[in-house]
């Protein structure tokens, strides 16, 4: 019967890597949030937010985030107020029954670039940029994928027919992506003086997006450590109790 355990384990292994086939293998990056003790590198996430604000947010919404959430990557209350106030938010109706514009507040959701998907398609040759709030969890490979995608633009191989307005990208399924290369290096001037190479920007924005996908990750790992320590001690004690109680039976 012991072999059953092995069979179950093998079965689980066999099933997990399903799906990822015949694609260019993604380079595996090292991330501050890797592993059981990994946390988000606040500086990288803030730089990533800057990239998002200045580049990606022209096309991509992040509907699940609120400006106040940025506290999670180390922005102070005042900084957040300033970031939010730089946006115009539609509010209302007021007592005249009209909608009006006002500067954003920390409690507002991130302001989307387009009012609706139709507006986005109309502006972008029919392509729809996905919301980025969960993009890291929504793609096989997560941060490695987004990092790779942003740097994966190449000339199409000879003989490949590209559709109109499509770009060749090594890591995109089918290799034809409607997003023009968003980053080329030096697209932003980082507030902390870090040099804005393409690699740096891609890595930082992927860090930011990973945080956005799962802002509670640090709390999860921290709680997990306490729970596991408790369980290990409890199980050890129970093992002792079991041995003692069963001693007479064997």
């Amino acid at each position, binding site marked *: *019967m012991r*072999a*059953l355990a092995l*069979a*179950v384990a*093998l*079965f*689980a292994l*066999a*099933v*997990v890597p*399903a*799906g990822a086939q015949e694609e260019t293998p993604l380079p595996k990056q090292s991330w501050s949030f890797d592993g*059981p003790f990994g946390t988000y590198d606040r500086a990288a996430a803030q730089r990533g937010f800057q990239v998002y604000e200045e580049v990606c947010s022209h096309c991509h919404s992040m*509907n*699940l985030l609120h400006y106040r*959430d940025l506290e999670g990557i180390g922005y102070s209350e005042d900084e957040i107020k300033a970031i939010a106030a730089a946006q115009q938010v539609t509010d209302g109706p007021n007592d005249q029954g009209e909608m009006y514009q006002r500067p954003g507040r920390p409690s507002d959701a991130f302001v989307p670039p387009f009012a609706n998907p139709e507006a986005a398609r109309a502006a972008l040759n029919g392509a729809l940029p*996905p919301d980025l*709030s*969960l993009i890291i*969890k*929504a*793609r*096989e490979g*997560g941060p490695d994928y987004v990092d790779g995608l942003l740097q994966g633009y190449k000339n199409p191989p000879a003989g490949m027919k590209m559709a109109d307005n499509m770009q060749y990208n090594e890591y995109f*399924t089918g290799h034809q992506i409607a997003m023009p290369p968003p980053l080329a290096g030096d697209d932003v001037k980082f507030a902390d003086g870090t040099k804005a190479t393409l690699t740096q920007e891609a890595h930082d924005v992927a860090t930011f997006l990973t945080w956005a*996908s*799962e*802002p*509670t990750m640090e*709390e*999860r*790992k921290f*709680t*997990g*450590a306490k*729970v*596991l320590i408790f*369980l*290990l001690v*409890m*199980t050890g004690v*129970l*093992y002792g*109790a*079991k041995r003692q*109680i*069963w001693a*007479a*039976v*064997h």
Partner: protein
Amino acid sequence: MAAAPQQNKIVRWIDHRLPIFTFMQHELNEYPTPRNLSYWWNFGSLSGIMLVIMIVTGVFLAMQYTPNVNMAFDSVERIMRDVNFGWLLRYLHMNGASFFFIVVYVHLFRGLYYGSYKEPRELLWMLGVVILLLMMATAFMGYVLPWGQMSFWGAKVITSLFSAIPVVGDSIVRWLWGGFSVDNPTLNRFFSLHYLLPFVIVGVVVLHLVALHQHGSNNPLGIDRKGPQDSIPFHPYYTVKDMFGLGVFLIIYAAFVFYMPNALGDPQNYVQANPMQTPLEIVPEWYFLPFYAILRSVPDILFIPAKLAGVLCLFGAIGVLFFLPWLDTSRVRSARFRPVYKWVFWLLVIDVAVLGYCGAHRPEGWFILAGRLSTLYYFVHFIILFPVIGWLERPLPLPTSIAAAVTRKGGAPLGAASPMEKH
């Protein structure tokens, strides 16, 4: 009936009117259990604990969840982000479903190996199969609730299966959907049923336990208890053994919940459902993969079209389990004493693993053949090999008693006299 030796006045007052303490004394303290149960016998109580964990986390999730096609996805993300420890509830529930199935599948294979479905435990086994069916329905409908891409398309594929039924199929599908496609009415009824069915499971589990306590547990030797030297009281022996097993189990479960909560899930389900965009691959959760493979492997059989044949085999794959007590013609329970069945059992384990592997891939190339052969074997195993092996096999001699087989001295009566028993 010997009343429990309760000193406490209040306890005695209550017990006289509602014999709950006597009942517990009887079912836990006195309940005689074979002395030789291995750790494979832990998976029954683990299943029960998983059911409780699912209900508790589910009830709390339902307090924040909104069953509406426009809000469901965001409400789950709200739970993940804004509800205190909402991420914990959600990950416990999400991974809990996987671990519930792991535990129940091990429990079931344990039963297959040690012949726990045989006389006099046929109904106990059949109630277990009913629980499995209810669990599958519950998990299927639960997976629809977060309203991701796989939720939607999984629901669509599986409910559409019923359209394979001749004549009334399409009407049944519309009736299930509550409309002309998987939409808000579908989500609402799935939520309602997803809330209801676990409590139905609790009811069937109670019957399962009543049936269990009628004849007691089977054991690795598969022979009946012959006297007091063969048994020990459930408490404290098996309570402590179950608790220790629970600890080990929780460590593994917690490792997933806290450190790889999405490892068993599909990334596509973090994309909100979009009825206009079919995902490249529609795959169910891992615990349905073997059945999914059966569904997709079956070709046209005579005049039955492949789709209907697939659905019939899918239900047949679970339905056949109801008949095992009669398909197995061997009188010997434990595979330990069945030199042929002992090996054939592992063929089934491998077969189900191959089915699962095929289920995760499109039926293309050699997956078609592998899927078909493993589907065929699944049914041959139960319908042909079970009776035939029972007839032809010559079992090994059975030990005279449990105690004789498992103790050095042949076993002195134990239990009532054990020091832990004295209050």
